[in-house]
């Protein structure tokens, strides 16, 4: 079996009925999709299968042979966040962060599908199967709606991380 995971083609050696979640986490060491309830109830294992948000814990890998899989790792990087990730950052939409990968992927698919600003009710519908036990959902909804309106479209809107080297050389330092 083969999968295209975050743009790279990989060969899968796990048995065909292995849940996609475990193939990603255990065989490919991609730990963005979280093993939450593993009954399809919590949403944190969500990945995009050919662009559609799906529960990877309930998906046998053989059923998606050849498909293109996007995990949170394929959406953006720490120094180059996607619009949805940047909006989550800006709106404080994550607390413990365990639900965040699934939320971001489902929101990304929603915005992609809609192609423009999404209504509150559409967010409730698209993320309705995702549990969050920290935030009370308020800031998550704010973030998704802001991202869909293009309010936070790049990391340029965010504070610049501190460079690795200090700018001031200490007095008397051998360096």
């Amino acid at each position: 079996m083969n999968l295209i995971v975050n743009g790279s083609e990989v060969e899968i050696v796990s048995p065909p009925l292995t849940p996609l979640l475990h193939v990603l986490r255990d065989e490919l060491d991609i730990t963005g999709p979280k093993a939450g309830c593993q009954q399809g109830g919590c949403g944190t294992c969500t990945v995009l299968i050919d662009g559609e948000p799906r529960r990877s814990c309930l998906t046998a890998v053989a059923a998606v042979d050849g498909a293109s899989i996007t995990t949170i790792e394929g959406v953006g990087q720490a120094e180059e966040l996607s619009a949805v990730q940047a909006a989550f950052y800006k709106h404080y939409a994550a607390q413990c962060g365990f639900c965040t990968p699934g939320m971001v992927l489902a929101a990304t698919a929603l915005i992609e599908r809609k192609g423009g600003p999404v209504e509150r009710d559409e967010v409730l519908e698209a993320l309705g199967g995702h549990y969050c036990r920290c935030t009370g959902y308020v800031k998550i909804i704010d973030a998704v709606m802001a991202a869909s309106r293009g309010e936070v479209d790049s990391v340029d809107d965010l504070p610049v991380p501190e460079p690795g080297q200090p700018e001031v050389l200490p007095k008397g330092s051998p360096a």
Partner: protein
Amino acid sequence: MAKHHGRGFATIEYPTGMNQNGDPSQAWIKLKPDGRVDVFSGTVDIGQGSKTVHTQIVADALGVPYDWVTMDNTNTDSSAVCTGTFASRGTFIGGNAVRLAAEKVRERILDIASKELEIDPSDLDIEDGEVIARGAPQKKINVADVAGAATYNYGELISGSSTALKPFADVDDATGQVEIEPHSAISYAACVADVEVDDETGEVVVQKLVQVYDVGRAINPTLVEGQIEGGAIMGLGLGLLENSYPYYPSVKHRGGQFGAYLAPALRDMPEIDNVIIENPSADGPFGAKAIGEMANNAQPPAIANAIFDAVGVWLTEMPATPDRVLEALAAKREPTRDGKRVVFDEHLSLKAVSANQGEGFFGVEA
């Protein structure tokens, strides 16, 4: 059979941390030779944002930029002791530990800067990473240079450690009674819940929660809001959906699997309105008291009160599941007998036969 609306109100007072004795949080802070600050605090961030808030407290107490401060609390070997992340104690007790440690570090920075600038430490201030002479702002030295001088010229590691610990109470030897001081940081909160109760299905829907929290000082208002909103949904879960081990350690009330334990999802969200009151505590770091665990305490009683307002039954056991609501309504529909009198409950029976909820007769001016 109808839907009834009700409004309920509940208030709480919340003593921050453990309200007996002790309950320590420790912190240790050291300065690198480049003036950057390492904080070893025992408080564990479980997503509520204590790392951010403690970083803010240290940066403000020291007078250095926020991004100079690195919070390392991920290691139980190297970090200081903290009783734990519970009882809304992270900002008040853990925050006080880092504040007190930072004040000691500040003293050492001023002492060394005083030698370098030849100005008395009491005439020096630290602002935005620079030690500045009061009244003579051209006399200044960067904290990085102070830390470098301490390391390479004076042979000192600038550091400070502290413990926030509630003083021990006095025990009266004769009576064995313990005198406990009133707690120094009691937070207050109020919650108003608007609910809709369906007397046919027993379903309760929370339509709106208005929540007011006195947190002393909101060091990071957005994080405070995050705690209030998160607490609202947890409280709603406790009030309507979640069985939370009332008879621990018996697991009688635990759901057998994930799907059997209902937690609020997006569709259960009511309209939420938050108000933050800043009524500073004399003992808190920059006046802060608490927000955290306290944020999910007021909703269940407010919901219970609102259900009473709506249909006139008291649910004395949470959560107010449809079966419990229906059971209470059925008990209420049963008439009471007093000798030859059989009396039906006014609240429900009147409304049950009335076309306009007992408000009066049509066509008759009240």
